C-alpha cells in the first residue's frame, strides 16, 4: 500500500493506460479488485470502488431507486439498519418514494415471513444489514434472498460492512444483487470501500456522480490505488484467517459475558444464537449511561448505546427498536473483540466495569 505512494511503486494513475506507470497502477487496482471479489464469492467485474460503505449504500439505494423508478417506488428495510441506509431512505421518502421500516423485535433477527408480507407489487428494493454494527446480530440472508426471489423483481441490497472476517458471506450463491463493503472494518485503511453490483443478475444502477466514467461509469473519479490495494490485502487476509480466529474470539466473548453476568443487573442485547463472536452489547441496570461510559473510559475503549451528536446523549435507536426502555438503551456498552484481543484485555475490561458499576450504583442509591 505504501509503495503506491512512492515513485518507485505504482504511483501512476490507474486510469492512464498510455504509459507503464499507469499500467502498473492499473494492475495493482485489478489485483485488489480480484482479492475483494474472492473474499465474498463475487466476480472481479462486480466490484465498484467507493470511499466506504456509506457511499456504497447511497449508491445502491439511490441508484436502484432511480433506475427502476418506472417499475415502482417502494423500498423495504429494517428499523435497526445503519444510518448510512436509514438516512438515504428518509431522503428518498422526501423525494416521493415509500419506505417500509420493518421491526425485527426483541431478537433483532428479521422474520422472513414479515418481509414477504411487507413486499408490494411496486417494491423495487430490499436493503438489509448482514451483521448489525451495534448488536452483532446476523440476518438469515439465504431466507431473505428466497423471499426476494419469490417476489420476482425486487432487488436485494446487503450492507456487509461488518461481515468481512466475522461471518460467512457468499455474494453469488446467496443471490444478492448489491453488497456494500468497507475496508476499515476488516483492519484495512479508512476511506475506501466497494459496492458489489451483480453482473450475473443483470443489476442496473443510475450513477450518482459523473466525470470520467471510471468504474463502469457508476463511480467517476480517479481510483486511489494505495487505498484499494490496502483494502484488497485486508480482505484477503480476513477471508483467509477468520475461520481460525472466530473460536478464539468466541471464547473471549464468553469469558467477558460470564464475568459481566456476575456483576448483576446486566442484560444482553440481541439474539446470542444469531450473533457474531466479535461483538457483545450489554445494558446495565441501575446506572446512568453517560456516567458509566465516563467511568470506564480511562481504562477501556468501548462504545456506548447512545449517540452523542449533541451534548445530551440520545439512546440507541437500535436498542429502542429491540424494546429496551430509554434508560437501559442509554446504559449499554458495546464491547468489540478482534484479532488482537487477549484474555488479559477481557479481564481488564471486566475490572474496569465492575469498579465503575459498584461506585455509580452506590452513588445512585441503588438498592
Amino acid at each position, binding site marked *: 500500500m505504501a509503495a503506491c505512494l512512492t515513485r518507485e511503486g505504482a504511483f501512476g494513475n490507474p486510469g492512464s493506460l498510455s504509459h507503464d506507470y499507469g499500467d502498473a497502477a492499473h494492475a495493482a487496482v485489478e489485483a485488489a479488485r480480484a482479492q475483494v471479489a474472492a473474499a465474498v464469492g463475487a466476480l472481479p467485474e462486480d466490484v465498484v470502488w467507493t470511499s466506504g460503505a456509506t457511499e456504497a449504500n447511497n449508491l445502491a439505494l439511490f441508484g436502484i431507486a432511480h433506475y427502476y423508478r418506472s417499475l415502482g417506488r417502494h423500498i423495504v428495510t429494517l428499523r435497526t439498519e445503519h444510518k448510512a441506509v436509514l438516512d438515504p431512505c428518509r431522503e428518498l421518502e422526501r423525494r416521493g418514494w415509500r419506505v417500509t421500516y420493518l421491526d425485527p423485535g426483541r431478537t433483532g433477527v428479521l422474520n422472513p415471513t414479515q418481509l414477504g408480507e411487507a413486499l408490494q407489487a411496486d417494491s423495487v428494493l430490499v436493503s438489509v444489514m448482514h451483521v448489525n454494527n451495534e448488536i452483532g446480530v446476523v440476518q438469515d440472508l439465504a431466507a431473505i434472498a428466497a423471499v426476494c426471489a419469490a417476489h420476482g423483481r425486487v432487488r436485494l441490497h446487503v450492507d456487509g460492512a461488518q461481515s468481512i472476517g466475522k461471518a460467512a458471506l457468499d455474494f453469488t450463491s446467496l443471490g444478492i444483487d448489491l453488497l456494500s463493503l468497507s475496508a476499515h472494518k476488516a483492519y484495512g485503511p479508512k476511506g475506501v470501500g466497494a459496492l458489489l453490483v451483480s453482473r450475473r443478475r443483470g443489476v442496473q444502477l443510475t450513477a450518482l456522480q459523473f466525470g470520467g466514467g471510471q468504474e463502469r461509469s457508476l463511480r467517476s473519479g480517479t481510483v486511489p490505488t494505495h487505498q484499494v490495494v490496502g483494502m484488497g490485502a485486508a480482505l484477503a487476509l480476513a477471508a483467509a484467517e477468520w475461520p481460525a480466529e472466530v473460536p478464539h474470539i468466541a471464547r473471549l466473548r464468553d469469558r467477558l459475558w460470564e464475568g459481566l453476568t456476575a456483576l448483576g443487573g446486566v442484560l444482553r442485547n440481541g439474539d446470542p444464537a444469531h450473533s457474531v463472536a466479535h461483538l457483545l452489547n450489554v445494558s446495565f441496570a441501575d446506572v446512568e449511561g453517560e456516567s458509566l461510559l465516563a467511568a470506564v473510559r480511562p481504562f477501556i475503549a468501548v462504545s456506548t448505546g447512545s449517540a452523542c451528536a449533541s451534548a*445530551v446523549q440520545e439512546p440507541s435507536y437500535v436498542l429502542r427498536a429491540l424494546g429496551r426502555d430509554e434508560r437501559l438503551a442509554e446504559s449499554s456498552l458495546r464491547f468489540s473483540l478482534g484479532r488482537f484481543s487477549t484474555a488479559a484485555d477481557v479481564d481488564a475490561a471486566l475490572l474496569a466495569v465492575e469498579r465503575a458499576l459498584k461506585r455509580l450504583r452506590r452513588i445512585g442509591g441503588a438498592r
Partner: protein
Amino acid sequence: MTYNELTRRHFETAAHAGTLTGPGVRRGVAGSRAMGTWVQFDVRWRSGATPLTLDAVRFLAFGCPHVIAVADWIAEHAVAAVLPGRTGLPASLPELKERFAVPTEKVGRLLIIEDAWIAAISPPSPGETNGNA
C-alpha cells in the same frame, strides 16, 4: 463528551456521596431515575449556631457526570458556610454552569439539583422536630 478538570475531579472522587441519619437530619429529593436524573441531599444543621450553618451534607445522585460532580461540590461547600440567597446554594446556577462547563442542554439537570437542595434546607413544617430523614 468531554468534561473540565473540576467536573472530572468531583465525578471521580464523589467524596460526599452517601446518606445521613439521626436527629436533625433533613432530606430533599428531586427528579426521577426513569427520566434520567435523580438527586437526594441529606443535611444536618449545626445545633445552636448563629447564623444557621450546616454541620454535614451528603448526596446521592443518578445522573450524568455533571450532575454527580455538581452535587458533590455543593455537599462539600455548603458545610459551615453561611448559605446565601433565595436557594441557599453555595453558588448560583449560572456560576455552577460556568464552573463545571455544563452544556446549555443540561441546565434542566441543574434545576433538579437546585430543587433537591431547596427541599433539603427548607424549614421543618410545624410540629416537625427531628427532621425528615
